[in-house]
């Protein structure tokens, strides 16, 4: 068995997991949105249908484990989304996508199932009013729950993403119960990132430490309960900055996870303002062959990621780096600069 990460990049033919922002357009303006969906700097330079198709065919040839279409709201580009899902599904690649559920009607759920979607993650950030308050529109909670039901009805595996805010942390038990009711396979909770609109609304939405602690305590209790029961609902706590601290400092030998932004740029981390190329200029395969698997060895990337050691530091004004999704990224091209 091969355990040395040092050799992995020489051995593997491509990434195992990818996220692709199929659009950054959005039908909501959520207060916590980390990438200013609907109004960020990528919106006007998004990949065309042809560019997306070329990228996804490239990905399909590399045969990764899974690909997740993110956004924005991916269903705003439903037609191309369905085509891309089909290309990947034909190669037995697991495909997931994230959605706010507003457009996920019964009919759309059937279309997604028909195309070969494996899994969908619906954002549910509270019960009823607290969910809608974050979304700035009434009725969104009902639609998110309906989306879960519609997905469930066509047997698409579902996940729920929950972002803690100052007004929803005490609803975590009800969120777990909701997940159980709709056969959700994973509840993923991630600390609120104070970037994007999350930065603009920091004061009103960020939970206090005490709120976090109380929520985590309940969360652990419910997770243990689920593990003992049947383990069908996985409850995961995700630290959004962990990956770039870990990858930049401890395991920079090989990273088989790649994120593509809506404008085609390749981002080592969607939370950092640095890109390593653009699939509009060169194919993903070309980037992989030029050492994309060792992206975390790029010195500038290490410098940028090491400026941030915790979530709170993401929006500190004294840290000198471009505001992610608001200002132009630091742009490196590993093919053209041949630096790996």
């Amino acid at each position, binding site marked *: *068995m*091969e355990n040395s990460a040092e050799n992995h990049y*020489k051995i593997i*033919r491509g990434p*195992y997991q990818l996220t692709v922002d199929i659009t950054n357009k959005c039908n909501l303006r959520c207060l916590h949105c980390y990438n200013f969906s609907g109004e960020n700097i990528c919106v006007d330079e998004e990949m065309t249908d042809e560019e997306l198709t070329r990228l996804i065919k490239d990905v399909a040839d590399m045969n990764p484990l899974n690909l997740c279409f993110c956004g924005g709201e991916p269903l705003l580009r439903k037609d191309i989304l369905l085509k891309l899902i089909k290309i990947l599904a034909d190669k037995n690649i*697991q495909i997931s996508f994230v959605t706010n559920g507003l457009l996920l009607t019964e009919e759309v759920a059937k279309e997604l199932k028909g195309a070969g979607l494996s899994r969908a993650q619906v954002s549910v950030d509270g019960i009823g009013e607290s969910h809608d308050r974050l979304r700035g529109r009434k009725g969104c909670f009902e639609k998110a729950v309906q989306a879960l039901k519609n997905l469930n009805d066509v047997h698409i595996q579902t996940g729920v993403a929950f972002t803690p805010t100052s007004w929803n942390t005490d609803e975590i038990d009800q969120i777990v119960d909701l997940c159980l009711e709709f056969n959700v396979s994973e509840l993923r909770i991630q600390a609120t990132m104070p970037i994007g609109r999350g930065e603009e609304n920091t004061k009103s939405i960020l939970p206090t430490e005490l709120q976090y602690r109380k929520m985590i305590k309940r969360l652990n209790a419910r997770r*243990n309960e689920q*593990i*003992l029961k049947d383990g069908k609902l996985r409850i995961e706590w995700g630290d959004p900055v962990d990956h770039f601290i870990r990858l930049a400092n401890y395991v920079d030998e090989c990273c088989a996870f790649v994120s593509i932004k809506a404008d085609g740029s390749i981002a080592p981390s969607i939370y950092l303002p640095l890109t390593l190329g653009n699939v509009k200029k060169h194919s993903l395969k070309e980037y992989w062959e030029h050492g994309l698997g060792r992206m975390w060895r790029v010195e500038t990337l290490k410098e940028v990621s090491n400026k941030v050691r915790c979530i709170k530091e993401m929006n500190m004004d004294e840290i000198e780096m471009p505001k992610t999704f608001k200002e132009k990224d630091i742009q490196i091209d590993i093919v053209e600069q041949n630096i790996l």
Partner: protein
Amino acid sequence: MSLDKKILDFKPRFKKSNVAYSREENDGYVSFRFQSPGTSNETILNDTCVEIIKICNGQNSIKDIVDHIMATYEGAPLDLVVKDVVETVQKLMRMQLITWEEENPFIPKYRIDLGEGYSIYRADYSDIPKINNFFKLVQIKEDKPYDNYQICLNKYIPKWSINSEVLRTGFLTDMQYIFMLEKDGEVVGTTYSVDNNNKCIHTIISLVCKKDILCLDSFVSYVFSLIPQISTQNLTGYRIHVGNEENELMNVLKSTGFEKTLTLENEIGFGKDLLEYNYYI
């Protein structure tokens, strides 16, 4: 081949259904993602491992697999092939990707009778339902009294993992040691401990026994004298982190040779200390 005949005759079966993903890579390597609680990320196997997996079907013995590899890789030294095959099977077993029908030579039972109806044996996966039932009876709840049982829990290990990891997955590897104490066929006590990869200190996770067991001393001393002989690691000692509780089990551990080496003040918060006990072999 200088291997125990039981190992040579062992017929492992690779759980094909647990392969969630595979991709052929460069130089004959294959990436796998397994649906197995013993694995999380992708695992890259070299061509020999892949060849071993192909014929790990429950029909071929370790000896058959060795012969197959010898035939596939002409000129390969026998000793190296034997080592490779055995280590691969063991590693796959630890990743919970191997099943077997008869007694697993990597997890022998080491059964002994203590008289008066008491017996001790090492559990394997077939004993999971028994262990499960026993824990259900005990209903481990931290900081709550256990009417008919005495319990010694490693406070660094979440209490749930004692129930969950083995019982949920229904699997025991050769690095996990659950010994059962039975009285007239009924489970009355267990010890659960684990080898740590590349570490010489063996971690005790739990000891659970019914109260008023006559042979508690014999049970504990048998288990802790046997483990160093059968461990996958070169053990130099045992370690457990416990709270302040005093019970017969702790007394037995102390009489076996466990000594308090460290007090970690307020380690688990709420003003509660953790006591580290070590027993050096």
